[in-house]
């Protein structure tokens, strides 16, 4: 039986983010902030609709899950119903480079200047967690693979041999906070969705109409075996084979036992966390409650 708790006042500053409508941040005021947690919603989701339970409960249970107390929380919004995965991945990269940059000052606390600005360290934070739900997980992984492919291309342009190219990419990844990120994925759609029509897509009223209003291209991209999902898996597995030390290539995954929307599968480099979230479906798996604290435990640096 849960008991009522005295909620600590959430002392995070609410900030909008220039150039990224509907995305926002909650920045702690009271502590040295070294970690950023970025949330990416799924198909027809929204920053608040999908993740709002994290906002209140991460403050309320800060004593039990102390890493939440000092983390800056970013809630990313994108057009999950009409824009292609690849486009959204490119835009997510821009978003991350903007919010994580030491040049952008979301922090109000004058006592916390953060890392000093220099060419060696362009990042504001030391740790990064990327948290995705459903389609959001696919967008995150595409963004990660794009970053590695870009590094590899850059290395090839310098005519490095295969051994030196791997070292060069590893070194570049080590200097990239984005590629050092840890991935925590709720019910990822990486292995595809298990529906063949609009009716099967929905678990509730708004998702039903969202599916009807969505672009068929996006729905097809998320089908099992789609070229987009296949190339993402192949590319990620190959990249992991060459660069097993790049953290952002691997993911920890939490599925609900009642998920009827996505295939409960993983890439070779992933770990599905057991036990499954018993009694939870595709939508509720990522929503912590007083009686369901798994999401707060799962999203841990």
């Amino acid at each position, binding site marked *: *039986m*849960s*008991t*009522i708790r*005295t*909620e*600590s*006042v*959430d*002392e*995070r*500053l*609410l*900030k*909008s983010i220039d150039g990224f*409508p*509907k995305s*926002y941040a909650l920045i702690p*005021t*009271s502590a040295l902030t070294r970690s950023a947690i970025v949330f990416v919603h799924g198909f*027809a989701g*929204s*920053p*608040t*609709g999908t993740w*709002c339970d994290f*906002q*209140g409960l991460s403050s309320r249970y800060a004593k039990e899950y102390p890493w939440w107390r000092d983390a800056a929380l970013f809630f990313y*919004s994108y057009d999950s*119903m009409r824009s292609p995965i690849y486009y959204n991945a490119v835009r997510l990269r821009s978003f991350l480079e903007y919010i994580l940059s030491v040049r952008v000052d979301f922090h*109000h606390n004058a006592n916390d200047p953060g890392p000093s600005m220099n060419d060696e360290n362009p990042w504001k934070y030391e740790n990064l967690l990327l948290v995705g739900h459903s389609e959001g997980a696919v967008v995150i992984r595409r963004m990660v693979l794009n970053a590695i492919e870009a590094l590899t291309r850059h290395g090839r342009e310098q005519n490095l041999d295969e051994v030196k190219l791997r070292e060069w990419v590893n070194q570049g990844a080590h200097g990239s906070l984005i590629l050092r990120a840890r991935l925590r994925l709720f019910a990822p759609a990486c292995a595809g969705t298990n529906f063949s*029509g*609009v*009716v099967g897509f*929905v*678990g*509730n*009223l*708004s*998702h*039903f*109409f*969202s599916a*009807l*209003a969505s672009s068929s291209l996006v729905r097809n991209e998320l089908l099992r075996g789609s070229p987009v999902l296949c190339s993402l898996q192949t590319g990620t597995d190959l990249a992991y084979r060459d660069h097993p030390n790049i953290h952002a290539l691997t993911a920890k995954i939490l599925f609900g036992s009642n998920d009827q929307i996505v295939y409960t599968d993983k890439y070779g480099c992933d770990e599905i966390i057991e036990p499954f979230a018993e009694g939870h*479906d*595709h*939508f*509720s798996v990522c929503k912590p*409650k*007083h*009686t369901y604290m798994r999401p707060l435990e799962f999203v841990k640096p």
Partner: protein
Amino acid sequence: MNTPESVSHANLDFFVSELWANVDRSSLFLPLKSELARWLLLGAGIGFFDKTEVDKFLLRQQVNWQEAHVLDLDVGYGVELTFFNSFDVRIKMFVANDLVIEDARSDLHAIFRNYMLMNSEILADRDAMGFLATLHTTGDIWRLIVNGGELLPDTSHSVKKLCSGLAKALGYLEHVLAIKGKIPSEMSESRDFDLSLRNELIEMLQEFQSYRLGLAGVESTLRYFDVAGSVFAQCELVIVDDFDPRREIFVELYNLLDRWPDPSNSRAELPRERCWSRYVRQQDELPPTATSRMGHG
């Protein structure tokens, strides 16, 4: 500036940039400033915003309006301003007991912020705002919209756009009603006055938005069924294993909209037959019963 002050300043900055400014940028036909002014007053009353800053902000807006020879917040929009004015006494009564408010401050702030964030998403969404604006058009224009499909040159009233806007609006309603529903059940030892305070805050916020959401009267509420029916008329959904999506969706839609409070009290209960008639577009068919097999996300 100490921490609570900086938090309340940040809250107001966010409100102004993400909600108020969106109204300024919008040319949509909705009386939003009257509604948002009540959000500000209520937020200041519970300490979510800095009261002095809110007073200054509203004063500046009033000066601007007077300079523009506009006498009231949303004059010319054809809305009954008494709808919004009626909330002012209620807000004052709600915030009158500082000690009780202080005791429940964290919960009240969390609820208020949640609603504010959800609303900022709706206000920034062109499809959602387009859909909500059409709920308030005259009957003739409305009939053209739902029957004509691509009526206007910018296609903002195409069925696809209306469907997208409907989805966003319904997502918002689902979320809000879920918050309201889970608060008491989530806590096994809730203090009575806390719960009543929370529920009253939620009800007030819901009622503020009722006009914008088209849920402050029967006719605009019926238009949700018009749009849903138009969407179904244009897509080919098949019945599989006795699962008729059209009837299932009607039941879900009716249950959702019927749970929303109507501050004008113009409807005690949504008229199911009329809703069904609008949904199936006058076809001779009986409405389904109140149960549905769909799950909730």
